[in-house]
């Protein structure tokens, strides 16, 4: 049986998402089965629209959707400086031949990392299945995620 890594991706921060996708792609490349369960701010990483858009059902959730945004506008957890720092980080990563967050996400798709969205938070934020990238395998709750993660390592980031 293949080794297994399951990651609960809670944060929508650029640096923490980079950690999620670095671990996920690395593990998948060495033969692990990898599951990522995106919940709360983590859902920003798998939105189809990577910038800011009014996703949601009510005016309030639409406002939240706009403020949260997608992968391209993810803030860094420290010294964000109104979104300037993530741009600096991306340029440093390119300059030093380190994969950017967007590249890591693409590699994760190619390597068959299983991406799951949290049903409960989607409901709170008025997000639909179609608001996410097509590679999202399923919309799950806690019980199903625990079953998937059983007999493997689990991380919360």
């Amino acid at each position, binding site marked *: 049986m293949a080794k297994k890594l399951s990651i609960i991706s809670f944060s929508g921060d650029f640096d923490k998402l980079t950690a999620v996708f*670095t671990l996920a*792609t*690395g593990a*998948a*490349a*060495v*033969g692990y089965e990898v599951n990522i369960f995106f919940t709360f701010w983590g859902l920003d990483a798998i939105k189809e629209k990577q910038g800011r858009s009014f996703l949601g059902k009510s005016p309030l959730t639409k406002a939240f959707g706009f403020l949260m945004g997608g992968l391209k506008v993810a803030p860094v957890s420290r010294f964000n400086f109104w979104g300037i720092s993530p741009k600096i980080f991306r340029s440093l990563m390119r300059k*030093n*031949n*380190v*994969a950017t967050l967007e*590249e890591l996400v693409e*590699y994760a798709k*190619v*390597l068959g990392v299983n991406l799951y969205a949290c049903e409960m938070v989607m409901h709170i934020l008025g997000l639909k299945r179609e608001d996410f990238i097509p590679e999202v395998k399923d919309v799950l709750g806690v019980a199903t995620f625990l079953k998937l993660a059983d007999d493997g390592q689990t991380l919360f980031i």
Partner: protein
Amino acid sequence: MATYQLDITKDHCPITFVKTKIELSRLSKGDILEVLLLEGEPLENVPRTSAEQGYTVLDVSQVEGATYKVTIQK
């Protein structure tokens, strides 16, 4: 049976072995992949994880300085 080349000397973890894994998955059985990589983490990791996943590491040789060539058969 064909031979392919992959240069990961400019890449860093985890992309070194991510690229190797993707390239190997595209090959047909019997094909050979020559991976150019640097000593240290890639040199330790690429041959070991390739062997663990059922590929055959045919050769590891120094090209020059810190650069090595790892020959893997699918």
